[in-house]
């Protein structure tokens, strides 16, 4: 009895629950306003598909923000990795019917590129002690710049059709591949953060890096791993992005980093580090997506969505600060 009440009280204190309620209310409101258009399986599935790539970026960002860091580079790393992946595939077989071996090699190259940028971020932050904001602002520029250099600034659309038709826009058992990949990544990351030693060290470092160091946790090594993870997921997102749009999408994605950070914060992860949840982040991705879709269906100008998300974001961080201040006084 007492236990149940404790658990309930703790649950209520968690930002994730509030975010989920916001999402549920949004879905409910739009569904009531336009039941035929909004509350359909098709609409939900297309929202999920559109969001799948952002989910990957936001999941990596969650780990980073839990360490009290930030990764601004994810959108550029996504594009760079897509470029590397398609260049590798084209180098091996430039025809539209390149086989799965070629696709696998390109995918591997794309993932490695993402991992590399992430590890570089981590190294500069943990070892060279340059603040995360500056390091990832720098690699944001560098990764995008290199991506443009490798393509001379012209989008490459020569993506093997085997990749584009399956992973890019196909389904398994009626579920789009993009959603399948995102769900698998979310499941692994959510358990990783909540249940494993890796997740616990991530929280501990974000909470009190000095305390973690005193008990023998190598905060520098762990930070490198966390940023590398974020880079790796951005690399995977890059390959999926390439498959989905059949293009390197050089000029899009400038908002990706902000959208990812917004999703993490909306999902209840504290910008001050120490606490966070991957499931919360997924909910945080869906709030702007649902808003956008809902506004489109209601024929409200879609620009209102960015206004609404911006306002909610500031409110979320403000309430997190209030919570922390209250806690300090307790």
């Amino acid at each position, binding site marked *: 009895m007492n236990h149940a009440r404790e658990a309930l009280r703790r649950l209520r204190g968690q930002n994730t629950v509030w975010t989920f309620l916001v999402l549920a209310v949004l879905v409910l409101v739009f569904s009531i306003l336009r039941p035929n258009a909004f509350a359909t399986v098709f609409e939900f599935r297309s929202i999920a598909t559109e969001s799948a790539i952002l989910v990957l970026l936001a999941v990596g960002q969650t780990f980073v923000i839990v360490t009290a860091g930030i990764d601004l580079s994810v959108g550029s790393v996504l594009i760079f990795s897509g470029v590397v992946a398609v260049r590798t595939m084209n180098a091996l077989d430039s025809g539209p019917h390149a086989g799965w071996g070629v696709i696998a090699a390109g995918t591997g190259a794309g993932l490695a590129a993402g991992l590399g940028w992430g590890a570089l971020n981590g190294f500069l932050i943990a070892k060279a002690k340059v603040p995360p904001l500056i390091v990832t602002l720098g690699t944001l520029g560098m990764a995008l710049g290199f991506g443009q250099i490798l393509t001379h600034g012209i989008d490459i659309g020569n993506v093997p059709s085997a990749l584009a038709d399956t992973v890019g826009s196909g389904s398994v058992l009626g579920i789009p591949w993009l959603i399948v990949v995102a769900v698998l990544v979310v499941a692994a990351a959510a358990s990783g953060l909540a249940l494993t030693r890796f997740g616990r060290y991530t929280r501990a470092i974000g909470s009190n890096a000095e305390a973690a160091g005193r008990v023998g946790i190598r905060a520098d090594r762990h930070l490198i791993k966390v940023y590398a993870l974020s880079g790796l997921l951005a690399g995977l997102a890059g390959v999926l992005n390439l498959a989905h749009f059949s293009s390197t999408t050089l000029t899009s994605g400038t908002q990706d980093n902000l959208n990812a950070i917004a999703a993490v914060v909306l999902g209840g992860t504290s910008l001050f580090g*120490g606490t966070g949840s991957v499931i919360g982040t997924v909910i945080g991705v869906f709030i702007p997506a649902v808003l956008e879709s809902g506004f489109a269906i209601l024929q409200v100008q879609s620009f209102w969505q960015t206004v609404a998300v911006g306002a909610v974001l500031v409110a979320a961080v403000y309430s997190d600060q209030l919570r922390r201040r209250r806690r300090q006084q307790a």
Partner: protein
Amino acid sequence: MPEPLLEARGLVKTYGQVEALSGANFAVYPGEVVALVGDNGAGKSTLVKTLVGAVTPDGGQILLDGRPTSFGSPRDAQALGIETVYQDLALAADLDAAANLFLGREQLRGGLLGALGVLDKRAMRDRAVEAFAELGVQLGDIGAPVATLSGGQRQSVAIARSVAWASRVVFMDEPTAALGVVQRGRVLDLVRRVRDRGVSVVLISHNMPEVLSVADRVEVLRLGRRVARFEAAETSLEELVAAMTGAMDGAPPNEENEGDAA
């Protein structure tokens, strides 16, 4: 007296122009509470840090069981059963008490899950509940982040963590400084209970009545050097203050001269 468990001989540590330790001696004997007292800036915290491997001394010797040792890091000292409660609490405020107790020493599940790094949260929680109960620490909600606990409870968690892992010595740097009267009493009870379990306690404190009530012995540091040592039962507040301030410099019975290993 038996051989000291842990001993410092002629430790020197300088920070730029400041000589925090200038040939400091210090000894901890098995199963005792020894208070380390001295004015602000006397070098107490620095001495403790050198003895637990957090700071490398510029000169002098550290002996464990009579044998010269050197600790490369706090981890080395911890491996030998020496733990520290730091002056600024070294807890991760967002984690709960059990997670803090096991921080850096997490228990993993068996088999494949363990290989994947999955924590055995239940086992750790059960052991934490036991450890807190054994020391009489009352937390209420053990799953709550440490940040939501009171100052005294947080201090108790920090102490319980050190005690749970220390097999030989626990250093406590002003563990009661930030606490109210009631919580202060609890922490002192905790200190006695730790000693009764056979673990030595080195207590740094500015509160002389507190020192006299809980310590078996007192060692006095002044200007980076040990200037006096007392049996707590045979000394008085006035004598301690005199030693700390240097008022008794001259011909005190207990004073030891530089290089005198006493």
